Protein backbone atom coordinates (compact mmCIF):
# COMPACT_ATOMS: atom_id res chain seq x y z
CA UNK A 1 0.00 0.00 0.00
CA UNK A 2 1.21 3.46 -0.80
CA UNK A 3 2.14 5.96 1.83
CA UNK A 4 -0.53 8.19 3.32
CA UNK A 5 -0.77 11.72 1.90
CA UNK A 6 -3.53 13.24 3.95
CA UNK A 7 -4.41 12.07 7.41
CA UNK A 8 -7.44 13.39 9.18
CA UNK A 9 -7.70 12.79 12.90
CA UNK A 10 -10.82 13.45 14.92
CA UNK A 11 -11.61 16.51 12.88
CA UNK A 12 -14.49 18.62 14.13
CA UNK A 13 -16.05 21.69 12.65
CA UNK A 14 -18.85 23.38 14.55
CA UNK A 15 -20.58 26.51 13.33
CA UNK A 16 -21.73 28.63 16.22
CA UNK A 17 -25.36 29.69 16.39
CA UNK A 18 -25.39 33.20 17.82
CA UNK A 19 -28.37 34.71 19.53
CA UNK A 20 -29.37 37.10 22.20
CA UNK A 21 -28.64 40.63 23.32
CA UNK A 22 -24.90 40.17 23.54
CA UNK A 23 -24.56 37.82 20.59
CA UNK A 24 -24.10 34.83 22.82
CA UNK A 25 -23.44 31.49 21.23
CA UNK A 26 -26.40 29.34 22.10
CA UNK A 27 -25.44 26.23 20.23
CA UNK A 28 -23.51 24.74 17.39
CA UNK A 29 -24.22 23.28 14.02
CA UNK A 30 -22.05 20.22 14.24
CA UNK A 31 -21.29 20.13 10.55
CA UNK A 32 -18.30 17.83 10.95
CA UNK A 33 -18.22 15.84 14.13
CA UNK A 34 -15.18 13.71 14.91
CA UNK A 35 -14.09 12.39 11.55
CA UNK A 36 -10.90 10.41 10.97
CA UNK A 37 -9.53 8.83 7.82
CA UNK A 38 -6.49 8.65 5.60
CA UNK A 39 -6.00 9.28 1.92
CA UNK A 40 -3.03 7.70 0.28
CA UNK A 41 -0.97 8.94 -2.56
CA UNK A 42 -2.66 8.48 -5.93
CA UNK A 43 -5.82 7.30 -4.30
CA UNK A 44 -9.37 8.53 -4.68
CA UNK A 45 -11.47 8.53 -1.59
CA UNK A 46 -15.14 8.87 -2.36
CA UNK A 47 -17.37 10.57 0.15
CA UNK A 48 -21.12 10.18 -0.04
CA UNK A 49 -23.94 11.34 2.13
CA UNK A 50 -27.12 13.29 1.97
CA UNK A 51 -27.31 16.98 1.37
CA UNK A 52 -26.27 18.98 4.40
CA UNK A 53 -24.46 16.13 6.12
CA UNK A 54 -21.22 18.08 6.13
CA UNK A 55 -19.35 16.81 3.12
CA UNK A 56 -18.37 20.19 1.77
CA UNK A 57 -17.52 21.45 5.20
CA UNK A 58 -15.27 18.49 5.73
CA UNK A 59 -13.59 19.06 2.38
CA UNK A 60 -12.99 22.71 3.11
CA UNK A 61 -11.83 22.16 6.64
CA UNK A 62 -9.28 19.65 5.42
CA UNK A 63 -7.91 22.31 3.09
CA UNK A 64 -8.07 24.89 5.87
CA UNK A 65 -10.39 27.01 3.83
CA UNK A 66 -12.49 26.95 6.97
CA UNK A 67 -11.03 26.86 10.44
CA UNK A 68 -11.34 23.61 12.34
CA UNK A 69 -12.94 23.36 15.74
CA UNK A 70 -10.83 20.43 16.87
CA UNK A 71 -8.73 17.60 15.49
CA UNK A 72 -5.78 17.43 13.21
CA UNK A 73 -5.10 17.34 9.52
CA UNK A 74 -1.73 16.10 8.33
CA UNK A 75 -0.52 16.71 4.84
CA UNK A 76 2.64 14.79 3.99
CA UNK A 77 3.08 14.25 7.68
CA UNK A 78 2.90 17.95 8.61
CA UNK A 79 0.00 19.35 10.56
CA UNK A 80 -1.68 21.75 8.16
CA UNK A 81 -3.01 23.84 11.00
CA UNK A 82 0.48 24.49 12.33
CA UNK A 83 1.40 26.53 9.26
CA UNK A 84 1.58 30.28 9.42
CA UNK A 85 -0.59 32.26 7.07
CA UNK A 86 2.16 33.00 4.59
CA UNK A 87 3.57 29.49 4.76
CA UNK A 88 0.15 28.15 4.11
CA UNK A 89 -0.25 30.42 1.16
CA UNK A 90 2.95 29.02 -0.29
CA UNK A 91 1.70 25.52 0.26
CA UNK A 92 -1.68 26.18 -1.31
CA UNK A 93 -0.77 25.11 -4.84
CA UNK A 94 -0.27 21.57 -3.54
CA UNK A 95 -3.80 21.42 -2.20
CA UNK A 96 -6.52 22.22 -4.63
CA UNK A 97 -10.28 22.17 -4.80
CA UNK A 98 -12.78 21.83 -7.59
CA UNK A 99 -16.11 23.37 -6.75
CA UNK A 100 -19.55 22.02 -7.19
CA UNK A 101 -21.00 25.05 -8.88
CA UNK A 102 -19.26 25.93 -12.12
CA UNK A 103 -21.18 29.20 -12.24
CA UNK A 104 -20.30 30.87 -8.99
CA UNK A 105 -16.79 29.49 -8.80
CA UNK A 106 -15.48 31.55 -11.69
CA UNK A 107 -15.03 35.29 -11.42
CA UNK A 108 -17.36 36.67 -14.08
CA UNK A 109 -15.17 39.70 -14.74
CA UNK A 110 -11.98 37.89 -15.59
CA UNK A 111 -10.95 36.19 -18.76
CA UNK A 112 -10.33 32.49 -18.66
CA UNK A 113 -6.65 33.10 -19.12
CA UNK A 114 -6.50 35.29 -16.05
CA UNK A 115 -8.56 32.96 -13.98
CA UNK A 116 -6.30 30.07 -14.72
CA UNK A 117 -3.00 31.89 -14.82
CA UNK A 118 -3.17 34.38 -12.01
CA UNK A 119 -2.10 31.98 -9.30
CA UNK A 120 1.02 31.15 -11.30
CA UNK A 121 1.75 34.84 -11.48
CA UNK A 122 1.00 35.52 -7.86
CA UNK A 123 3.16 32.68 -6.66
CA UNK A 124 5.81 33.43 -9.21
CA UNK A 125 5.86 29.76 -10.16
CA UNK A 126 6.85 30.46 -13.74
CA UNK A 127 8.37 33.51 -15.38
CA UNK A 128 5.83 36.05 -16.48
CA UNK A 129 6.31 35.53 -20.17
CA UNK A 130 5.73 31.82 -19.90
CA UNK A 131 2.47 32.07 -18.03
CA UNK A 132 0.46 32.28 -21.17
CA UNK A 133 1.98 29.16 -22.66
CA UNK A 134 1.35 27.30 -19.46
CA UNK A 135 -2.24 28.43 -19.44
CA UNK A 136 -2.81 27.33 -23.00
CA UNK A 137 -1.28 23.99 -22.18
CA UNK A 138 -3.62 23.54 -19.24
CA UNK A 139 -6.60 24.67 -21.23
CA UNK A 140 -5.86 22.12 -23.88
CA UNK A 141 -5.26 19.42 -21.35
CA UNK A 142 -8.76 20.08 -20.06
CA UNK A 143 -10.31 19.80 -23.47
CA UNK A 144 -10.79 23.43 -24.31
CA UNK A 145 -9.38 25.23 -27.32
CA UNK A 146 -6.72 27.89 -27.06
CA UNK A 147 -9.01 30.54 -28.51
CA UNK A 148 -11.14 30.15 -25.42
CA UNK A 149 -8.48 31.74 -23.29
CA UNK A 150 -9.53 35.32 -24.07
CA UNK A 151 -13.16 34.78 -23.22
CA UNK A 152 -15.21 35.38 -20.18
CA UNK A 153 -16.92 32.65 -18.16
CA UNK A 154 -20.41 33.65 -19.21
CA UNK A 155 -19.60 32.57 -22.73
CA UNK A 156 -19.20 28.98 -21.68
CA UNK A 157 -21.56 26.15 -20.91
CA UNK A 158 -21.58 24.46 -17.54
CA UNK A 159 -19.36 21.61 -18.62
CA UNK A 160 -16.83 23.95 -20.15
CA UNK A 161 -16.79 26.05 -17.03
CA UNK A 162 -16.12 23.05 -14.92
CA UNK A 163 -13.15 22.35 -17.15
CA UNK A 164 -11.89 25.85 -16.51
CA UNK A 165 -12.17 25.19 -12.82
CA UNK A 166 -10.23 21.98 -13.24
CA UNK A 167 -7.58 23.72 -15.33
CA UNK A 168 -7.20 26.31 -12.59
CA UNK A 169 -6.43 23.54 -10.10
CA UNK A 170 -4.37 21.47 -12.49
CA UNK A 171 -1.97 24.17 -13.59
CA UNK A 172 -0.54 24.41 -10.09
CA UNK A 173 0.55 20.81 -10.16
CA UNK A 174 -1.25 19.85 -6.97
CA UNK A 175 -0.82 16.65 -5.08
CA UNK A 176 -4.21 16.55 -3.49
CA UNK A 177 -7.49 17.71 -4.90
CA UNK A 178 -10.80 17.97 -3.14
CA UNK A 179 -13.46 17.53 -5.78
CA UNK A 180 -16.58 18.90 -4.16
CA UNK A 181 -19.45 17.50 -6.17
CA UNK A 182 -17.81 18.50 -9.44
CA UNK A 183 -20.49 17.01 -11.64
CA UNK A 184 -23.74 17.41 -9.76
CA UNK A 185 -24.55 20.72 -11.46
CA UNK A 186 -23.94 19.32 -14.91
CA UNK A 187 -26.11 17.66 -17.48
CA UNK A 188 -26.09 13.91 -17.68
CA UNK A 189 -24.33 13.83 -20.99
CA UNK A 190 -21.58 16.11 -19.77
CA UNK A 191 -21.04 14.43 -16.40
CA UNK A 192 -19.24 11.50 -17.87
CA UNK A 193 -16.86 13.72 -19.79
CA UNK A 194 -15.75 15.35 -16.60
CA UNK A 195 -15.54 12.12 -14.65
CA UNK A 196 -13.42 10.58 -17.35
CA UNK A 197 -11.21 13.58 -17.40
CA UNK A 198 -10.66 13.49 -13.67
CA UNK A 199 -9.76 9.84 -13.95
CA UNK A 200 -7.36 10.48 -16.79
CA UNK A 201 -5.67 13.34 -15.03
CA UNK A 202 -5.16 11.17 -11.98
CA UNK A 203 -3.47 8.57 -14.06
CA UNK A 204 -1.27 11.13 -15.76
CA UNK A 205 -0.26 13.14 -12.77
CA UNK A 206 -0.86 10.87 -9.84
CA UNK A 207 -3.26 13.19 -8.02
CA UNK A 208 -5.03 12.09 -4.92
CA UNK A 209 -8.68 12.97 -4.75
CA UNK A 210 -11.22 13.45 -2.09
CA UNK A 211 -14.21 13.00 -4.31
CA UNK A 212 -17.39 14.29 -2.77
CA UNK A 213 -20.72 13.40 -4.26
CA UNK A 214 -24.15 12.32 -3.35
CA UNK A 215 -24.38 10.11 -6.39
CA UNK A 216 -23.34 6.64 -5.31
CA UNK A 217 -22.89 5.33 -8.79
CA UNK A 218 -20.52 8.12 -9.74
CA UNK A 219 -18.56 7.63 -6.55
CA UNK A 220 -18.36 3.97 -7.16
CA UNK A 221 -16.96 4.54 -10.59
CA UNK A 222 -14.20 6.86 -9.65
CA UNK A 223 -13.13 5.94 -6.12
CA UNK A 224 -10.81 3.40 -4.64
CA UNK A 225 -12.32 3.65 -1.23
CA UNK A 226 -15.64 5.12 -0.19
CA UNK A 227 -16.78 6.76 3.00
CA UNK A 228 -20.40 7.29 3.96
CA UNK A 229 -21.33 10.30 6.04
CA UNK A 230 -24.43 10.87 8.07
CA UNK A 231 -25.08 14.12 9.94
CA UNK A 232 -21.47 15.13 10.35
CA UNK A 233 -19.94 11.75 11.08
CA UNK A 234 -18.53 8.91 9.06
CA UNK A 235 -20.72 5.86 9.55
CA UNK A 236 -18.87 3.50 7.25
CA UNK A 237 -15.76 3.38 5.16
CA UNK A 238 -14.34 0.57 3.02
CA UNK A 239 -12.86 -0.17 -0.33
CA UNK A 240 -15.47 0.33 -2.94
CA UNK A 241 -15.75 -3.37 -3.79
CA UNK A 242 -16.30 -4.21 -0.15
CA UNK A 243 -18.72 -1.36 0.50
CA UNK A 244 -20.94 -1.91 -2.50
CA UNK A 245 -21.02 -5.68 -2.15
CA UNK A 246 -21.12 -5.98 1.63
CA UNK A 247 -22.49 -2.79 3.08
CA UNK A 248 -22.57 -3.15 6.84
CA UNK A 249 -24.25 -0.02 8.20
CA UNK A 250 -28.04 0.05 7.88
CA UNK A 251 -27.80 3.55 6.47
CA UNK A 252 -25.37 2.49 3.75
CA UNK A 253 -27.67 -0.35 2.92
CA UNK A 254 -30.65 1.93 2.62
CA UNK A 255 -28.70 4.39 0.56
CA UNK A 256 -27.53 1.75 -1.86
CA UNK A 257 -30.96 0.32 -2.25
CA UNK A 258 -32.44 3.74 -2.88
CA UNK A 259 -30.28 4.53 -5.88
CA UNK A 260 -32.51 4.19 -8.91
CA UNK A 261 -31.04 1.74 -11.37
CA UNK A 262 -31.34 2.71 -14.99
CA UNK A 263 -32.61 -0.65 -16.02
CA UNK A 264 -36.32 -1.36 -16.03
CA UNK A 265 -35.62 -5.06 -16.06
CA UNK A 266 -34.10 -4.97 -12.61
CA UNK A 267 -36.64 -4.79 -9.82
CA UNK A 268 -35.33 -4.78 -6.32
CA UNK A 269 -36.49 -4.77 -2.83
CA UNK A 270 -35.90 -1.26 -1.64
CA UNK A 271 -35.24 -0.32 1.95
CA UNK A 272 -37.44 2.66 2.62
CA UNK A 273 -36.32 4.93 5.39
CA UNK A 274 -38.89 6.87 7.33
CA UNK A 275 -38.63 10.47 8.35
CA UNK A 276 -36.12 13.11 7.50
CA UNK A 277 -32.47 13.69 8.15
CA UNK A 278 -32.01 15.16 11.62
CA UNK A 279 -31.02 18.75 12.14
CA UNK A 280 -27.24 18.95 12.59
CA UNK A 281 -27.59 21.63 15.25
CA UNK A 282 -29.64 19.29 17.36
CA UNK A 283 -28.71 15.74 16.43
CA UNK A 284 -30.39 12.86 18.24
CA UNK A 285 -28.43 11.37 21.13
CA UNK A 286 -26.69 8.07 20.78
CA UNK A 287 -26.43 6.84 17.25
CA UNK A 288 -27.58 9.71 15.07
CA UNK A 289 -29.25 7.32 12.70
CA UNK A 290 -31.43 5.62 15.29
CA UNK A 291 -34.48 7.76 14.47
CA UNK A 292 -34.70 6.25 11.00
CA UNK A 293 -33.10 2.87 11.53
CA UNK A 294 -35.05 -0.35 11.13
CA UNK A 295 -32.78 -2.26 13.50
CA UNK A 296 -32.81 0.20 16.32
CA UNK A 297 -32.09 -1.13 19.82
CA UNK A 298 -32.42 0.73 23.13
CA UNK A 299 -28.63 0.97 23.25
CA UNK A 300 -28.59 2.89 19.98
CA UNK A 301 -30.60 5.66 21.58
CA UNK A 302 -28.09 6.22 24.34
CA UNK A 303 -24.64 5.24 23.33
CA UNK A 304 -22.66 6.63 20.46
CA UNK A 305 -21.41 3.66 18.51
CA UNK A 306 -17.67 3.30 18.12
CA UNK A 307 -16.11 3.65 14.71
CA UNK A 308 -14.37 0.31 14.39
CA UNK A 309 -12.77 -1.94 11.84
CA UNK A 310 -14.91 -4.97 11.16
CA UNK A 311 -12.86 -6.36 8.30
CA UNK A 312 -9.62 -5.26 6.74
CA UNK A 313 -10.02 -1.63 5.78
CA UNK A 314 -13.71 -1.74 6.53
CA UNK A 315 -14.79 0.63 9.25
CA UNK A 316 -18.31 0.93 10.62
CA UNK A 317 -19.98 2.83 13.44
CA UNK A 318 -22.93 0.71 14.49
CA UNK A 319 -23.94 -1.20 17.56
CA UNK A 320 -25.91 -3.81 15.71
CA UNK A 321 -23.08 -5.29 13.72
Amino acid at each position, binding site marked *: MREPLVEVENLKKYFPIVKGVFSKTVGYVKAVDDVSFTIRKGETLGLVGESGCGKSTLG*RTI*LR*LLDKTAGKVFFQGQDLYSYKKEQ*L*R*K*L*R*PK*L*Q*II*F*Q*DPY*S*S*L*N*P*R*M*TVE*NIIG*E*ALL*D*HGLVPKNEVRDKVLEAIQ*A*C*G*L*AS*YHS*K*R*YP*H*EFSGGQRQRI*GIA*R*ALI*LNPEFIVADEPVSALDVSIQS*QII*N*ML*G*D*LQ*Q*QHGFSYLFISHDLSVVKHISHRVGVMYVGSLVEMATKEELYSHPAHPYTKALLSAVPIPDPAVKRQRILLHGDTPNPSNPPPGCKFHTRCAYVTPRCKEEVPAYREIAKDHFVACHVI
Partner: protein
Amino acid sequence: MEAKVEVRVQSNPACKQEQAVSPGRLVWNRLRKNKLAVSGLVILLAIAVVSVAGPWCSPYTMESMDFSSRLTGPSGAHLLGTDHLGRDVFTRLMYAGRISLTIGIVAVLIEVIIGGGLGAVAGFYGGKVDGLIMRVVDIFLCLPFLPLLIVLGAILSDFKVSPQYRIYMVMLILGLVAWPVICRVVRGQILSLREQEFMQATEAVGLKDRRKIFHHLLPNTFPAIIVAATLGIGSAILTESALSFLGLGVMPPTASWGNMIQVVNDLYSIQHYSWLWIPPGVCILLTVMAINLFGDGLRDALDPKLKK
Protein backbone atom coordinates in the same frame (compact mmCIF):
# COMPACT_ATOMS: atom_id res chain seq x y z
CA MET B 1 -0.44 4.15 -19.49
CA GLU B 2 -0.52 7.36 -21.39
CA ALA B 3 -4.19 8.18 -21.40
CA LYS B 4 -5.11 11.02 -23.62
CA VAL B 5 -7.81 13.34 -22.52
CA GLU B 6 -10.34 12.34 -25.02
CA VAL B 7 -12.62 15.21 -25.59
CA ARG B 8 -13.45 16.40 -29.01
CA VAL B 9 -13.13 20.09 -29.11
CA GLN B 10 -16.15 21.43 -30.76
CA SER B 11 -14.82 23.22 -33.77
CA ASN B 12 -17.16 25.93 -34.65
CA PRO B 13 -15.46 28.31 -37.03
CA ALA B 14 -18.05 31.00 -36.49
CA CYS B 15 -17.25 30.89 -32.82
CA LYS B 16 -13.57 31.36 -33.31
CA GLN B 17 -13.79 34.61 -35.19
CA GLU B 18 -16.21 36.14 -32.81
CA GLN B 19 -14.57 38.63 -30.52
CA ALA B 20 -14.76 37.79 -26.89
CA VAL B 21 -17.82 39.47 -25.43
CA SER B 22 -16.78 41.17 -22.25
CA PRO B 23 -19.37 41.54 -19.47
CA GLY B 24 -19.42 45.27 -20.07
CA ARG B 25 -20.27 44.82 -23.72
CA LEU B 26 -23.05 42.45 -22.74
CA VAL B 27 -24.55 45.08 -20.46
CA TRP B 28 -24.35 47.68 -23.16
CA ASN B 29 -26.15 45.40 -25.58
CA ARG B 30 -28.91 44.92 -23.10
CA LEU B 31 -29.04 48.57 -22.22
CA ARG B 32 -29.37 49.58 -25.84
CA LYS B 33 -32.68 47.81 -26.02
CA ASN B 34 -34.18 49.81 -23.19
CA LYS B 35 -35.97 52.70 -24.84
CA LEU B 36 -36.28 54.80 -21.71
CA ALA B 37 -32.67 54.35 -20.76
CA VAL B 38 -31.51 55.30 -24.22
CA SER B 39 -33.69 58.39 -24.27
CA GLY B 40 -32.29 59.27 -20.85
CA LEU B 41 -28.79 58.96 -22.19
CA VAL B 42 -29.61 61.04 -25.25
CA ILE B 43 -31.17 63.82 -23.18
CA LEU B 44 -28.23 63.77 -20.83
CA LEU B 45 -25.70 63.95 -23.61
CA ALA B 46 -27.65 66.75 -25.25
CA ILE B 47 -27.70 68.75 -22.03
CA ALA B 48 -24.02 68.07 -21.47
CA VAL B 49 -23.06 69.12 -24.97
CA VAL B 50 -25.13 72.28 -24.87
CA SER B 51 -23.78 73.17 -21.43
CA VAL B 52 -20.19 72.57 -22.31
CA ALA B 53 -20.11 73.90 -25.84
CA GLY B 54 -23.04 76.29 -25.79
CA PRO B 55 -21.49 79.21 -23.93
CA TRP B 56 -18.83 79.59 -26.62
CA CYS B 57 -21.51 80.17 -29.19
CA SER B 58 -23.37 82.68 -27.10
CA PRO B 59 -22.75 86.39 -27.60
CA TYR B 60 -23.15 86.92 -23.85
CA THR B 61 -21.16 85.72 -20.88
CA MET B 62 -22.40 84.48 -17.56
CA GLU B 63 -21.92 87.87 -15.94
CA SER B 64 -22.40 90.35 -18.76
CA MET B 65 -25.11 92.77 -17.68
CA ASP B 66 -27.21 95.09 -19.71
CA PHE B 67 -29.25 97.36 -17.56
CA SER B 68 -31.12 98.72 -20.55
CA SER B 69 -32.85 95.42 -21.00
CA ARG B 70 -33.68 94.17 -17.58
CA LEU B 71 -36.34 91.57 -17.11
CA THR B 72 -37.25 91.34 -20.75
CA GLY B 73 -39.10 88.28 -21.87
CA PRO B 74 -37.88 85.79 -24.44
CA SER B 75 -36.98 87.41 -27.74
CA GLY B 76 -34.67 86.96 -30.69
CA ALA B 77 -31.80 88.64 -28.90
CA HIS B 78 -32.36 86.80 -25.66
CA LEU B 79 -33.83 83.40 -26.33
CA LEU B 80 -34.99 82.99 -22.76
CA GLY B 81 -35.11 86.62 -21.84
CA THR B 82 -33.01 88.47 -19.28
CA ASP B 83 -32.95 88.63 -15.53
CA HIS B 84 -33.15 91.60 -13.18
CA LEU B 85 -29.59 92.60 -14.01
CA GLY B 86 -30.08 92.23 -17.72
CA ARG B 87 -28.10 89.05 -17.99
CA ASP B 88 -29.01 86.55 -20.66
CA VAL B 89 -30.92 83.73 -19.02
CA PHE B 90 -30.13 81.17 -21.68
CA THR B 91 -26.40 81.76 -21.41
CA ARG B 92 -26.54 81.53 -17.66
CA LEU B 93 -28.55 78.37 -17.97
CA MET B 94 -25.77 76.78 -19.96
CA TYR B 95 -23.10 77.87 -17.51
CA ALA B 96 -25.25 76.58 -14.69
CA GLY B 97 -25.51 73.29 -16.51
CA ARG B 98 -21.75 72.94 -16.47
CA ILE B 99 -21.74 73.60 -12.76
CA SER B 100 -24.58 71.26 -11.94
CA LEU B 101 -23.18 68.42 -13.97
CA THR B 102 -19.70 68.92 -12.54
CA ILE B 103 -21.11 69.03 -9.06
CA GLY B 104 -23.06 65.86 -9.62
CA ILE B 105 -20.12 64.01 -11.02
CA VAL B 106 -17.48 65.20 -8.58
CA ALA B 107 -19.74 64.73 -5.56
CA VAL B 108 -20.41 61.20 -6.63
CA LEU B 109 -16.73 60.54 -7.21
CA ILE B 110 -16.08 61.60 -3.67
CA GLU B 111 -18.94 59.45 -2.46
CA VAL B 112 -17.58 56.48 -4.34
CA ILE B 113 -14.06 56.94 -3.09
CA ILE B 114 -15.07 57.25 0.55
CA GLY B 115 -18.03 54.92 0.51
CA GLY B 116 -16.45 52.38 -1.76
CA GLY B 117 -13.19 52.34 0.16
CA LEU B 118 -14.74 52.03 3.60
CA GLY B 119 -17.33 49.57 2.35
CA ALA B 120 -14.63 47.40 0.86
CA VAL B 121 -12.57 47.49 4.03
CA ALA B 122 -15.61 46.73 6.18
CA GLY B 123 -16.76 43.89 3.97
CA PHE B 124 -13.37 42.34 3.46
CA TYR B 125 -11.98 42.43 6.95
CA GLY B 126 -15.27 42.00 8.80
CA GLY B 127 -15.23 41.67 12.57
CA LYS B 128 -14.38 44.72 14.62
CA VAL B 129 -13.43 46.91 11.68
CA ASP B 130 -16.72 46.12 10.05
CA GLY B 131 -18.63 46.75 13.25
CA LEU B 132 -16.97 50.10 13.70
CA ILE B 133 -17.49 51.28 10.14
CA MET B 134 -21.07 50.14 10.16
CA ARG B 135 -21.76 52.04 13.36
CA VAL B 136 -20.34 55.12 11.72
CA VAL B 137 -22.60 54.50 8.77
CA ASP B 138 -25.56 54.09 11.11
CA ILE B 139 -24.68 57.37 12.71
CA PHE B 140 -24.43 59.11 9.39
CA LEU B 141 -27.71 57.69 8.24
CA CYS B 142 -29.34 59.09 11.35
CA LEU B 143 -28.08 62.57 10.66
CA PRO B 144 -30.78 64.79 9.27
CA PHE B 145 -29.93 65.53 5.70
CA LEU B 146 -31.00 69.07 4.97
CA PRO B 147 -30.19 70.72 8.32
CA LEU B 148 -26.81 69.05 8.15
CA LEU B 149 -26.19 70.39 4.69
CA ILE B 150 -27.28 73.83 5.73
CA VAL B 151 -24.90 73.80 8.65
CA LEU B 152 -22.10 72.41 6.56
CA GLY B 153 -22.79 75.11 4.02
CA ALA B 154 -22.48 77.64 6.80
CA ILE B 155 -19.30 76.13 8.16
CA LEU B 156 -17.92 76.31 4.66
CA SER B 157 -18.22 80.04 4.83
CA ASP B 158 -15.95 80.01 7.80
CA PHE B 159 -13.10 78.19 6.19
CA LYS B 160 -10.85 80.29 4.11
CA VAL B 161 -12.25 78.84 0.97
CA SER B 162 -11.48 80.93 -1.99
CA PRO B 163 -14.75 81.64 -3.74
CA GLN B 164 -13.62 79.93 -6.92
CA TYR B 165 -13.18 76.77 -4.92
CA ARG B 166 -16.38 77.09 -3.05
CA ILE B 167 -18.26 74.98 -5.51
CA TYR B 168 -15.69 72.27 -4.99
CA MET B 169 -16.40 72.46 -1.31
CA VAL B 170 -20.08 72.12 -2.05
CA MET B 171 -19.21 69.00 -4.01
CA LEU B 172 -17.15 67.74 -1.12
CA ILE B 173 -19.99 68.30 1.28
CA LEU B 174 -22.49 66.53 -0.90
CA GLY B 175 -20.08 63.66 -1.19
CA LEU B 176 -19.41 63.61 2.53
CA VAL B 177 -23.06 63.43 3.34
CA ALA B 178 -23.98 60.75 0.84
CA TRP B 179 -21.16 58.25 1.11
CA PRO B 180 -22.83 55.90 3.62
CA VAL B 181 -25.29 54.79 0.97
CA ILE B 182 -22.53 53.58 -1.31
CA CYS B 183 -20.65 52.20 1.63
CA ARG B 184 -23.55 49.95 2.46
CA VAL B 185 -24.00 48.85 -1.10
CA VAL B 186 -20.33 47.96 -1.49
CA ARG B 187 -20.13 46.21 1.83
CA GLY B 188 -23.22 44.18 1.07
CA GLN B 189 -21.78 43.22 -2.26
CA ILE B 190 -18.49 42.21 -0.79
CA LEU B 191 -20.12 40.19 1.94
CA SER B 192 -22.06 38.24 -0.63
CA LEU B 193 -19.08 37.99 -2.94
CA ARG B 194 -17.03 36.60 -0.12
CA GLU B 195 -19.40 33.69 0.05
CA GLN B 196 -19.11 33.05 -3.67
CA GLU B 197 -17.07 30.06 -4.54
CA PHE B 198 -14.71 32.03 -6.71
CA MET B 199 -13.52 33.87 -3.65
CA GLN B 200 -12.95 30.55 -1.90
CA ALA B 201 -11.03 29.61 -5.00
CA THR B 202 -8.72 32.57 -4.61
CA GLU B 203 -7.98 31.39 -1.10
CA ALA B 204 -7.51 27.86 -2.33
CA VAL B 205 -4.90 28.84 -4.88
CA GLY B 206 -3.24 31.03 -2.28
CA LEU B 207 -3.55 34.47 -3.80
CA LYS B 208 -2.27 37.45 -1.88
CA ASP B 209 -4.81 39.69 -0.16
CA ARG B 210 -4.06 42.59 -2.42
CA ARG B 211 -4.87 40.56 -5.48
CA LYS B 212 -8.04 39.25 -3.88
CA ILE B 213 -9.26 42.74 -3.22
CA PHE B 214 -8.22 44.49 -6.37
CA HIS B 215 -8.67 41.76 -8.93
CA HIS B 216 -11.60 39.90 -7.56
CA LEU B 217 -13.67 41.79 -5.05
CA LEU B 218 -13.62 45.35 -6.30
CA PRO B 219 -14.22 44.69 -9.99
CA ASN B 220 -17.26 42.67 -9.03
CA THR B 221 -18.68 45.51 -7.01
CA PHE B 222 -18.40 47.87 -9.97
CA PRO B 223 -21.85 47.17 -11.38
CA ALA B 224 -23.47 47.98 -8.07
CA ILE B 225 -21.26 51.01 -7.62
CA ILE B 226 -21.97 52.26 -11.09
CA VAL B 227 -25.70 52.03 -10.58
CA ALA B 228 -25.54 53.66 -7.18
CA ALA B 229 -23.24 56.32 -8.55
CA THR B 230 -25.41 57.08 -11.54
CA LEU B 231 -28.45 57.53 -9.38
CA GLY B 232 -26.24 59.44 -6.95
CA ILE B 233 -25.39 62.04 -9.60
CA GLY B 234 -29.06 62.78 -9.95
CA SER B 235 -29.61 63.19 -6.27
CA ALA B 236 -26.48 65.30 -5.88
CA ILE B 237 -27.77 67.67 -8.54
CA LEU B 238 -31.13 67.81 -6.78
CA THR B 239 -29.55 68.41 -3.42
CA GLU B 240 -27.28 71.11 -4.75
CA SER B 241 -30.21 72.86 -6.33
CA ALA B 242 -32.13 72.71 -3.06
CA LEU B 243 -29.12 74.10 -1.22
CA SER B 244 -28.70 76.85 -3.77
CA PHE B 245 -32.37 77.54 -3.53
CA LEU B 246 -31.86 78.09 0.18
CA GLY B 247 -28.91 80.29 -0.67
CA LEU B 248 -26.27 77.95 0.65
CA GLY B 249 -25.02 76.10 -2.36
CA VAL B 250 -23.36 77.69 -5.31
CA MET B 251 -23.14 81.41 -4.73
CA PRO B 252 -24.05 84.05 -7.27
CA PRO B 253 -22.84 85.48 -9.56
CA THR B 254 -21.79 81.96 -10.45
CA ALA B 255 -24.94 80.54 -11.91
CA SER B 256 -26.45 77.29 -10.80
CA TRP B 257 -29.91 76.14 -11.69
CA GLY B 258 -30.87 76.27 -8.04
CA ASN B 259 -29.75 79.83 -7.42
CA MET B 260 -31.26 81.01 -10.68
CA ILE B 261 -34.63 79.90 -9.37
CA GLN B 262 -33.92 81.36 -5.96
CA VAL B 263 -33.88 84.88 -7.41
CA VAL B 264 -37.59 84.52 -8.00
CA ASN B 265 -39.01 84.76 -4.53
CA ASP B 266 -42.28 86.56 -4.73
CA LEU B 267 -45.62 85.84 -6.26
CA TYR B 268 -45.41 88.64 -8.76
CA SER B 269 -42.21 87.29 -10.26
CA ILE B 270 -43.52 83.77 -10.23
CA GLN B 271 -46.47 84.99 -12.20
CA HIS B 272 -44.89 87.48 -14.53
CA TYR B 273 -41.29 86.45 -14.97
CA SER B 274 -41.77 82.79 -15.66
CA TRP B 275 -38.79 82.74 -18.03
CA LEU B 276 -36.55 83.30 -15.06
CA TRP B 277 -37.48 80.21 -13.12
CA ILE B 278 -39.22 77.73 -15.37
CA PRO B 279 -36.22 77.02 -17.64
CA PRO B 280 -33.79 76.24 -14.82
CA GLY B 281 -36.46 74.16 -13.12
CA VAL B 282 -37.07 72.23 -16.28
CA CYS B 283 -33.34 71.78 -16.73
CA ILE B 284 -32.98 70.23 -13.29
CA LEU B 285 -35.99 68.06 -13.88
CA LEU B 286 -34.80 66.89 -17.28
CA THR B 287 -31.24 66.26 -16.21
CA VAL B 288 -32.11 64.37 -13.09
CA MET B 289 -34.80 62.45 -14.86
CA ALA B 290 -32.48 61.54 -17.69
CA ILE B 291 -29.93 60.33 -15.18
CA ASN B 292 -32.52 58.36 -13.29
CA LEU B 293 -33.90 56.75 -16.42
CA PHE B 294 -30.43 55.83 -17.52
CA GLY B 295 -29.49 54.56 -14.08
CA ASP B 296 -32.64 52.51 -13.88
CA GLY B 297 -31.95 50.99 -17.25
CA LEU B 298 -28.40 50.30 -16.21
CA ARG B 299 -29.58 48.53 -13.13
CA ASP B 300 -31.88 46.33 -15.17
CA ALA B 301 -29.12 45.65 -17.64
CA LEU B 302 -26.76 44.67 -14.87
CA ASP B 303 -29.31 42.58 -13.02
CA PRO B 304 -28.30 38.98 -13.49
CA LYS B 305 -31.84 37.86 -12.82
CA LEU B 306 -32.94 39.39 -16.08
CA LYS B 307 -30.35 37.44 -17.99
CA LYS B 308 -32.69 34.49 -18.30
